[in-house]
């Protein structure tokens, strides 16, 4: 199963709920397209909820980093919410914990954008 993504507004924060696998091919490209589209439409506060993402490979990580850069270049912020242990491990191995702001609960994450 590839990744499915849907977005909702919580105040002025756009929360993107991702479900499935972010891997080379459709999964990674869907992730990239959704985030780029949000950034292009002027969304500057983007919170990606990865609670239901079961698997990310190096291509998926690459798209997450690329999306982070895209949003930043548009003057916005991209943060991550509710990582599974395996995804946390990936961010630690790749040192991307030093790049992404990561939150355990949505309310704290939303407040952090203020």
């Amino acid at each position, binding site marked *: 199963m590839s990744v499915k993504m849907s977005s909702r507004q919580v105040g002025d924060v756009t929360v993107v709920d991702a479900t499935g696998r972010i891997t080379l*091919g459709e999964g990674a490209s869907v992730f990239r397209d959704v985030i780029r589209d949000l950034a292009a439409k002027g969304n500057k506060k983007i919170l990606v909820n990865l609670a239901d993402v079961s698997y990310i490979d190096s291509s998926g990580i690459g798209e997450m980093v690329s999306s982070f850069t895209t949003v930043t270049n548009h003057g916005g912020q991209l943060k991550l919410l509710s990582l599974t242990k395996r995804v946390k491990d*990936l961010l630690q191995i790749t040192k*991307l914990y030093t790049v992404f702001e990561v939150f355990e609960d949505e309310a704290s994450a939303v407040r952090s954008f203020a």
Partner: protein
Amino acid sequence: MAERKLLLDSTLDSVEVAETEVLGAAREIGFHEDDLHQLGMAVRESMVNAVVHGNRYNARKKVHLSVTKAADRLTIVIADEGDGFDVNTVPDPLAEGNLLRQSGRGLLLIRAFVDEFQVLPGQPRGTEVRMVKYLAKAS
């Protein structure tokens, strides 16, 4: 030691085939869920390297997969028929200036998820990746 060899096409479907093959062998030996996940990732990353970077999706080139079961370990060899590459030329993805690069983390993840990892020149050409994961070191 039981060895099984497969000759795979240079397609992304072969990534799934290789992962399924390796995980089946790993389950028979008795690897647990977290180790299966790590093995699966290492195999996927190696297969993607072979198909995409090694053989460049060339339909005339194959990926050679070998899976060898022993009581205490699983040995996986993945070889492509590409032009080969020097592993020392791959930029360090953990260097400060490389953290925001989109690609280049595959080898890092493979090293993290298996106990032994070697990249060798293929015979007669290409690149051969040899990975070993030990049951005793698992869990």
